Structure formats: C-alpha cells, structure tokens
C-alpha cells in the first residue's frame, strides 16, 4: 500500500482545524489563526497538485485507491479518484485558501471559529469527491451541512437565521430519500462499492425509483428549478467566503453526483428521465435568467445566474454525448472560478459601502479602476466570451445538445443571450454611468490581498479559456469510458 494521499488530503484540514481549536490568540489579534489556516490550505493545494501531476490520464480506472474495512462485512472506507473527480478536488483545494485570505476583509468577529468551520468544510468537500462507496459519499455529503449552517447562521447578514434554516432543511429533505436509495441498493446488489456496482449494474426494474431518490437530493443541491429557492437566500445572507464556497464547490457536488451516480449506476433510468432533466434545465436557463435580469441586489443576481449556469450543466450531462459531459465538467470548473470571483467582487464593494444594492453604485470606474477591470473580466467570463473558460464549457454543452436534441439546444442558446444581457447590464449599472453618490468617492481600490485573490482567479479563467487541453485531457478517457459503459448497458437491456 502506498502513501494514503487522498486520506491525507481529507484529514489535513481537520488536523489544521484541531490545531486552531487548541491554539490561543490574544484578544483581537488573530494572525496566528490566519497563518495556520492559510498554511494548511496551501499545503493541501500543493498535495492536490502533486496528485494531478502523478495522475495517469490514460486510464479511466480509479487511482490512488484506499480500501479499509470500516463496518465489518458491510461498508468499506473506500476512496479513489478518476479523471472526473480529480478536477473537483483541485478546484476545492484551490478555492479554500482564497477564502481564507478573503476573511481578512469581511469577517469581523470570531475569526478563529470561522476558519475552523471553513477547514472542516474543506475536509468534507474533498471527501465527497474522493468517496467511491455510496455510504461514505453520503456521509461526507450530509456532514457538510453542519459547518455551512453555522457559517451562514453565525456570520451571515440580517436574515441569516431564515436562510440557514432553509438551506439546511431543503438539503436534508432531499438527502434522506437518497439514503433510502443507498440502503436499498445495498439490499438489491449486495454492496455499496461504486466500482463493484459499475461492474454488476443495478437491476433495471428498480432503477427508476432509485434514480428519482438520488435526483431529489441532487436537484436540491444543484439547485434545479423549482427547488432552487434556497440558493438566493443562502447566498445573499452568507458572508463572502461562505457564498464563495457555496457557489464554487457545494453546487458542484450535485453535478458530480449526477455524473458519477445517476449516469453511472442507473443508465436505463437516465434515458427514461432525460426529457425531465431537459425540461427543468431549459426552464432553469430561461426562467432564472429573466429573474436575474430583474434583481436589485447584486448577490441575488449572481445567485440566480448560478442557477442558470447549473441548468447548462445538467443539460450537458444528460445529453449523454462526449462533448456534453466534458462541457459540463469544464463549465462546472469554470463556474467555480468565475462565480467565486464574482462573489468576491461583490464582497469588495460591500466591505467598503455596506450595500449590495445595484442602485447605490454607479460610475465607480474612475474611482477604482483596477477593480473595474477585473470585474469586467469576470463578467465577460460569466457570459461566456470566447477566450474565457466560460466559453469552452457552454460551447461544448451546446454542441452536445445539438447532437441530441435540436429544439432544446436552440432554446438553451437563447439563454446565452439572456446571460449576456443580465451580466452586462449589471456591469453597466454598477461601474459606468454617473456617480450616484458622493460617498462612493471615498472608496479605495483593491488592497493587496483582494488583488491577489482576484488575480489568482483570473489567471486560470483566461488560461483555460485559451488552452483547455489540460482539463480535457484529464477527463477525456474517463468520460469516454463512462459513455461506453452507459451504451453497453443500454444495449444489453
């Protein structure tokens, strides 16, 4: 057995959190806590980069697999990565240190506790993407609710209690049905090990119900229309770092779950329910884009745009085409970077003016030019301008969709236009125009840490926009094999 690299990825943040828990800082001075958290997350990021380098791209088998008996004769603690999950792990380890840096500006009280929550959250998020046993997956998937609930509830805005409850209960309600499904799979197939389940397949007559149970959980988490209503609330009330984690990583758990479990385990049911997903995705894309147009609150607007973007993702996944699924994965990575950056951009002006309302800004381009440039870049990335990572994802998804269903693809393409409309309008109203408020003149431009965070996000956004090969190479074999497995399963039924 080699060095348990995945377990150390999962455990390291928790160890850091424990360290923070027992460390004592002087009143009002939290620099030790910050440095410990930053150090932990950066080390974790470096480990994940090492993971990516030593990852073998030519096979779709799970790599770095660890298999330990956990509950005798029932569940094994089994983790491993393939081309699909590795990117999400890197996304997680990349975003978390940025969140840790960003707390400098936004979190005022109980910073140490906040960092502990973020670190524990990171452990759970990595665990979700590594787990290749259904029960282990469920454990990490659900456990993430606890730190997120606290992050929203303790450090959130004025309506934080309502939002935290809504977030928690919505997600829990979706997930308990998945638990029923997981236990049922155990009784039907005799195992919850994903690798074995891929080989054995799940009995076709149960697939529809099981698929729906998993769907209930992932649809809430994605979030898909009409169960998306928790997301705007949670985003608006959460502190900046919380919104970033939520948008960049938590939403991706569901997309990842759709690919890994819904497609992988229930091929027959996936075919059956494709029209449902298409309908909901198209509604999400068009309907929430219109809602986004009407928003007064910047965070809410970006939250609704997330719903629309995730609509593209679910659409792409269920095209069951190579391009569609690859596009979805890249779209998720890109959305992780871009939405994180957009929330941070909102956070920047919010920290200065304490308002998220669009109409309290205007004409800030001359006051804070550096900020305006970076904000511009991410706005364009969000609407999918060629040359940014957003374009690659949307383009591949639409290509996959055109192959599968012309009508759906045409409607979804309209969503791209709407996306451009609400993002550009937002940018215009906030950055250009007349100076609406004398107070705005007192704003200062990006400080060092904000500049660092936003550039860190800008680099990969542009890099993968021009040169997406590293991403595509990593996922290609795994996606091809997933589709082949799907097709053979369908053919044999």
């Amino acid at each position, binding site marked *: 057995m080699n060095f348990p690299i995945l377990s150390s990825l999962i455990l390291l943040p928790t160890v850091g959190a424990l360290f923070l828990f027992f460390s004592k800082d002087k009143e009002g001075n939290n620099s030790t806590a910050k440095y410990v958290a930053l150090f932990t997350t950066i080390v974790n990021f470096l480990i994940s980069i090492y993971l990516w380098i030593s990852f073998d791209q030519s096979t779709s088998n799970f790599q770095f697999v660890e298999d330990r*008996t956990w509950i005798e004769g029932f569940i094994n603690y089994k983790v491993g990565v393939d081309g699909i999950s590795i990117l999400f792990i890197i996304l997680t380890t990349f975003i978390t240190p940025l969140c840790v840096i960003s707390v400098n500006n936004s979190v005022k009280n109980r910073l140490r506790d906040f960092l502990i929550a973020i670190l524990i959250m990171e452990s759970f998020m990595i665990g979700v993407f590594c787990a290749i046993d259904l029960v282990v997956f469920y454990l990490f998937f659900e456990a993430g*609710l606890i730190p997120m*609930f606290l992050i929203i509830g*303790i450090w959130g805005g004025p309506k934080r*209690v309502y939002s935290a409850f809504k977030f928690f209960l919505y997600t829990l309600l979706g997930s308990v049905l998945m*638990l*029923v499904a997981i*236990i049922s799979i155990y009784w039907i197939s005799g195992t919850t090990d994903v690798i074995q389940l891929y080989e054995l397949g799940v009995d076709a007559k149960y697939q529809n119900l099981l698929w729906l149970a998993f769907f209930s959980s992932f649809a809430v988490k994605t979030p898909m229309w009409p169960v998306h209503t928790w997301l705007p609330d949670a985003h608006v009330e959460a502190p900046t770092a919380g919104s970033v984690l939520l948008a960049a990583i938590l939403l991706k758990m569901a997309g990842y779950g759709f690919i890994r479990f819904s497609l992988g385990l229930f091929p027959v049911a996936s075919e059956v329910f494709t029209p449902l997903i298409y309908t909901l995705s198209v509604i999400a894309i068009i309907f929430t884009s219109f809602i986004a147009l009407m928003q007064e609150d910047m965070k809410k607007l970006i939250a609704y745009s997330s719903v629309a973007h995730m609509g593209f993702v679910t659409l792409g996944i269920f095209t069951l085409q190579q391009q569609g699924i690859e596009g979805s994965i890249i779209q998720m990575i890109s959305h992780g970077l871009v939405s994180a950056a957009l929330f941070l951009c909102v956070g920047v002006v919010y920290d200065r003016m304490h308002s998220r309302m669009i109409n309290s800004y205007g004409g800030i381009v001359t006051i804070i030019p550096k900020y305006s440039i970076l904000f511009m870049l991410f706005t364009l990335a969000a609407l999918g301008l060629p040359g940014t990572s957003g374009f690659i994802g949307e383009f591949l998804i639409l290509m996959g969709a055109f192959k599968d269903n012309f009508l759906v693809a045409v409607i979804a393409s309209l969503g791209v236009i709407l996306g451009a409309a609400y993002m550009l309008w937002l940018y215009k109203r906030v950055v250009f125009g007349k100076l609406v408020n004398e107070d705005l003149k007192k704003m200062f431009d990006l400080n060092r840490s904000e500049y660092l965070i936003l550039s860190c996000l800008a680099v990969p956004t542009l890099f993968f926009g021009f040169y997406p090969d590293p991403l595509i190479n990593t996922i290609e074999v795994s996606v091809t094999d997933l589709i082949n497995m799907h097709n053979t399963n369908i053919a044999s039924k």
Partner: protein
Amino acid sequence: MENLNLVLPEIFISLSIMFLLVLGVFKKNSSKITFNLSLFAILITAIITINETFSVSRETLFNESVVIDSMSSLMKIITLIGGFLVLVISSSYLKTFKIYNIEYPILILSSILGMMVMISSNDLIVFYMGLELQSLALYILATYNRDQLKSSEAGLKYFVLSALSSGLLLYGCSLVYGFSGSTNFNIISNQLNSNEYVLTFGIVFILVGLAFKISAVPFHMWAPDVYEGSPTTVTLFFTMVPKIAALTVFIRFLYVPFLNLIDQWQMIIIFLSIASMVFGAVAAIGQTNIKRLIAYSSIGHIGYTLSGLATASNEGIQSSIIYISIYVVMNLALFSCLLMLRRKEQYYEDIEDLSGLSKNHPLLSLCLLVILFSLAGIPPLAGFFAKFYVFKAVLEQSMFFLAIVGLLSTVVAAFYYLRIIKIIYFDKEKDKYDTDHSLWLKFSLTVSTILILLYFIFPSQLIEVVSRINII
C-alpha cells in the same frame, strides 16, 4: 440444584439495598456514605454481571421463569452503567435543593433491581413483579422534590397513569394465561398459534401496557408532564434506564410468547412507531421548556427504536438495541449540559436560557452542538449511525413506507434541534453561568460527547457485541 451464580447480580443488589436501608436508618447524617456505597454496589454488580453471565449464551433458571442470555446480560450492563452515571452526577443537583438524602440512592437501586428482574424474566408473574418494583420506586423518585408543587404533581400523574397501564397489562396477561394455560413464555409460545379473537385482545392489552411504559404515541401523555415536573436528575433517569428495561421486555414479549402471532402485532408496532416518530417530531417544535422538549424528542426516538422491532428479524432487534444504546449516551450528554445551566444555586431549564451561550461558554456550546446534531441524525455523528442501522434493517424487509416516513420525520425533527442551535449560536448572550461543576459532571459530558463525535471511527465494536443477540 440451580446455578445461583447466574442470578448473583440480583442477589447482591438486593442485599446491598437491605444493608443500606439499615445503615441509613441507624447512622445519622449518612447520606454521603450511602451515596458512595450504592455507587460501589452498582459497580460490583456490574462486574459480577460481566463475569458471571456475559459468556452465557442461554440458560434458564427456576422452572424456566428466569432466562439469562446475551440480550439480558447486555441490557443489564447498560442499565447498571446508566444508573451509576445518573447517581454520580446527581449529587450536586440534589444538594442545591436540599434533598440529598439516603432515600435517593436506595430508590434508584431498587428500581434497578426491578429492571434487572424484568430484563431476565421469562414468565408473566416474574415480569410483573419486576415491573411493579421498578414502578413503585419511580413514583417516589418523581415526587422526590416534595416541596415543589410540580414535582408532586408529576409523581401523582405518573402514579395514576402508570397504575392504569399496569392494570391493562395485567388484564392482557390474564387473557393470555386463559388461552395458553401457563405463565411461562416458552409454553405460551407453543400454545398460541390460533387466530382466536379474544387472544388478539390479550395481546393488544399487553402491548398497550408496554407502550405506556416506553411512552409510545398514543400512550405518551404522561411523559411531558412527568419529565418536566420531576427533578432533572430523575428525568435523566426516566429517559434512559426504564426505557432500556421496557424495551427488552417488549422484545421478549414480541419474539418469545407472541412469535407465532406476528401478523397480529406487526401492524400495531408499525402504527406505534410511525405515530411516535411523527408526533414526537411535530409536537416538540412548539416547546419552550428543555425538559418537555426532551420528552417529545424521546417519544420520537422511541418511534425509531420500535421501527426496528417491527421488522420481525434479528437484524431489526439488534438495530433497536444499538439505537437505544446510542440514545442513552446522547441523552446522558444532553442532561449533563442541562445540569450545567446553573447560576447562583438556581437551575435553568428554558430554551431561552441557552440564548447566546456560545459567547460565554464556547466549550459547553460546542458539546451541545455535537449532541444536538447527533440527536437530529446528521452524519458523521453517532446518532446518524443509530438511524442508519434501523433503516437498514427496515429496508431489508422492504418496508419502504415506514422507512420513508421515519426519514421524513427526521427532517421535521431536525428543525427543532436546529432551533436550539440557533438560540445557542445566533442569538444575543445572557449572563454567565457558574462553571464550578463537579468533576463527575464534566467527566460524563466529555466522555459522552467524545463517544458521539468519534463513534464513526470504530463503528464495528458495538455491532459486534450486539450481533451475539439472536432471539428468533
């Protein structure tokens, strides 16, 4: 000659009770020594139980009226540990109310003796004797703070309703005896296989009586009042120890004498289970007193335990026992926290009193956070695994309805647990509470919280112990 070693724990504990009574009467100011000696007695009884009976797979005594098997030994040990911990963390609470008397430990010992007899019973009469012994001790315990109106009211209510349920139980027993001609469980089991109408009545009466004892809906009415009125340490005792004994008897009744009548009782248990889960979750939402809330939450948890029993499989029974064991630990932790809400000789027990606790008492709040999330059944805490095993057993029997209702009610229940967390973490702080708690209280809170938190690392041990229980 019977092998009396097997009932040595019961013999020892009876002798201790008699000795302590005599000691308490003849020696002045002997509260402290009585307390310590009874702790010692429980400890020795536990050691004897482990030594003498733990390796016994199944033995019967006294004309098969007492049975010693792996279930009875395990449950006795849990009972004894529970009793020990209750006694050990009670003393400072009792001192505050000036009721630190010799009767308290002796009553707890006698009720434990009654429970041990119940757990081992294999005969209607032995069972009833044990039941009454423990109930009589519990009535007095409920009124133990006799200067307070609420406590007296609680005791009286408990007495009246419990006597009623005992009456129902006895009537059921007499009907069953009438049909089978014997009070012995094994003989009853062989005799009862007809679909006699009246016999069903007998079973229903017995089940109703037992449901009263474990406070399953719709026979739960006494629980909130009694839990609220009794002294907190007694409430802790109520929520833990008698439930274990009653659950064991429940299992014994369902799977020994009534084994052949599964069709008759299965629906009843499913109904009790669903009603308890749903009602426990919904009714707890509006509560303002923590002890009342715990009463409703314990009703809900009994519902989950019962759904394991409804499966009619060894897996189900084992999962119920795992559930109740984990529940006992969570309850102990929760009450330890509750006993720490003390300011200047006064104990606080409203949910509002927890407001903003996290600012002044971060460690206590963290423990409460862990405990409450565990009670809500959120992974990776112990409470999740308890539910997980139960639903695994339930789904094995393809009882989807039960599983889905149960899991949905966990979502409702999560709401009121979250509400407490909200009050602790999100609300404005109040004055500080005292922090000079007894060492035992801190110890029980720390140990139980760590057990809850880290259960997921070693889940197999508990399963291994419980998997030796094969009733069917």
